[in-house]
């Protein structure tokens, strides 16, 4: 099933529940009307939270840059000795 259909299906299901709530008015209507807004806000919060969280704990590796520099020196030395043109960049 194309993924978009899954998303649409979920949206349809949610709307169906919402309409049912409106029709049966188990909860006061004024509350029900606000539910979609809550949902959007909740989704937004989830997104912001996930991005913020990911940003805060973004894995970095400054050590690797240093190690790489060492590898580069080592490689250049070896290759130059073998006659590979390492230029003078």
């Amino acid at each position, binding site marked *: 099933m194309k993924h978009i259909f899954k998303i649409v299906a979920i949206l349809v299901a949610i709307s169906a529940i919402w309409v049912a709530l409106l029709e049966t008015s188990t909860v006061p209507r004024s509350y029900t009307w606000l539910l979609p807004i809550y949902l959007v806000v909740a989704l937004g919060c989830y997104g912001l939270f996930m991005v913020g969280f990911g940003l805060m704990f973004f*894995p*970095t590796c400054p050590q690797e*840059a240093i190690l790489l520099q060492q590898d580069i020196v080592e490689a250049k030395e070896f290759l130059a000795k073998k006659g590979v043109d*390492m230029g003078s960049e």
Partner: protein
Amino acid sequence: MEAAAGGKRAYSIIVPTYNERLNIALIVYLIFKHLPDVNFEIIIVDDGSPDGTQDIVKQLQQVYSEDRVLLRARPRKLGLGTAYLHGLKHASGEFVIIMDADLSHHPKYLPNFISLEECVFFNRVLSLTRKQKETGADVVTGTRYVKNGGVHGWNLMRKLTSRGANVLAQTLLQPGASDLTGSFRLYKRDVLEDLISSCVSKGYVFQMEMIVRATRKGYHIEEVPITFVDRVFGISKLGGSEIVEYLKGLVYLLLTT
């Protein structure tokens, strides 16, 4: 030297290059350093780099022999996606590894990719239970966004876009891998052939499409943490329309997978 000159290799490492004169030499050295006992070949797909990348490759062939370092050049810049396909045509390995030449993919992680594949392979050989058989990994993909992985050299803006893009994709697309746009991967040969033939995207959306399609097709994907140091030498080929391309790719994948 090699007994089976020109014979079949276990692993084919495809490295596309465009103006990677210095980097290609370094990466070839590092691959040989980190895979001393592995039967592999390096297939360099160079798109007529004006900086003389191919001259360096020829010199490397003198050092490491032409059977292990293969130059499969194309006349002009024809893009990454087709570069992989071109390399694949000349690959003799049962497994194919794809990596960038710009040293942001460090060859020291190759043994991790391979041991994961081998361990999975033994599982399959044993195949004691059906379940065990099913643990076979078809794709091993490098991921930067987990413990022991990481990125170096990105500013805050780049990190923010990356996180935003990732949350968006994970929520909407459920791609089955934590690092969508990374291109440090190992594939079983036939799986790669199958995936490439069903992918149409260009640029790095291509990497995304490959892994999402792999998930949808039910291939088993394993992840290996890798660190990613942004390119030191040479110029980046990424344009400014990166984000737009990404969003288009996301919509495309939502509609087609």
